[in-house]
């Protein structure tokens, strides 16, 4: 990271940056900054939710059929995996608050493992979609869905919109997961080196907020993409 004034390092503890009056001001600033950043993330995903809402209103049949074609078991498991990771993050912040270094490292590592598990399962699902030719583009083909759900009137063109949204939303969510895992690897390294103390654990807490947010996005994506319409077909 970039150099700060050496004078500041002499005056305060190493984690207090020179331009803050005290540690509390610094922590409050970091917290507000993180929450504001999450607010921008809400709007970032909000653009896609807006597109989703409109097309679901227009093309409900195709959305229902597309939703049925997703693997609900993998989806549910993935939701559970993310919830577990949120737990380990919450416990990790607690460990940091109490200054339990080893526990913190273990919990952060567990979070990373859950993160990779989520991405792995997501990868399997994507690969299935690839095999089924459900990726929008020239090779897109939903004859299987038309055959599987004769009761639903499917226009293949509109089905592409559902899958476009599916890939855009889960893809950008996965990107956030990858960034999150990166942040957590970084946090683990410094936690292992003992940088975080009960007095200074802001990075752990901020990383945690980010991770929880990514979890919440998935909490909405799961019902919106997987659970549109699963009731028995007449």
């Amino acid at each position: 990271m970039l150099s700060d004034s050496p004078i500041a390092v002499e005056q305060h503890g190493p984690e207090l940056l020179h331009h803050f009056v005290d540690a509390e001001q610094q922590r409050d600033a970091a917290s507000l900054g993180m929450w504001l950043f999450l607010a921008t993330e809400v709007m970032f995903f909000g653009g896609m939710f807006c597109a989703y809402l409109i097309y679901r209103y227009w093309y409900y049949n195709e959305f229902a059929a597309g939703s049925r074609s997703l693997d609900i078991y993998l989806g549910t498991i993935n939701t559970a995996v993310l919830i577990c990771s949120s737990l380990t993050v919450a416990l990790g912040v607690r460990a940091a608050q109490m200054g339990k270094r080893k526990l913190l490292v273990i919990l952060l590592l567990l979070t990373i493992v859950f993160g990779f598990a989520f991405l792995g399962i997501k990868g399997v699902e994507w690969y299935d979609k690839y095999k089924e030719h459900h990726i929008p583009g020239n090779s897109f083909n939903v004859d299987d869905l038309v055959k599987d759900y004769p009761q639903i009137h499917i226009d293949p063109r509109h089905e592409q919109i559902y899958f476009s949204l599916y890939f855009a939303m889960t893809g950008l969510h996965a990107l956030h997961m990858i960034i999150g895992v990166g942040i957590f690897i970084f946090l683990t390294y410094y936690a292992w080196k003992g940088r975080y103390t009960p007095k200074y654990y802001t990075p752990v807490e901020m990383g945690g907020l980010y991770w929880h947010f990514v979890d919440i996005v998935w909490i909405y994506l799961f019902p919106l993409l997987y659970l549109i319409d699963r009731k028995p077909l007449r």
Partner: protein
Amino acid sequence: MSEHIMSSKFYYTIWIALLCLTVITAAVSFVDLGPLNTVVALVIATIKALLVVLFFMHVKYTSEKLTKIVIVSAIFWLFLLLALSMADYATRLLS
């Protein structure tokens, strides 16, 4: 943001609740409730999100009003985007 340290048991309780809600929402989707299916799914998702925000993200215990204002404004702005866009789409057939 607070020094408040929760017991680990408390976190496990929230975790169990979240897992249960996940199973419930997946199961309910197989039951035909008519248009209520969507409502139930979104209500459960919102409860889950609230649990995470309030307890895992410590918003319930923060003394900081500003955090809550930021969250509420983010949701409000998202609502503006959705509502005013839908205002167009929902009324197009009328004219």
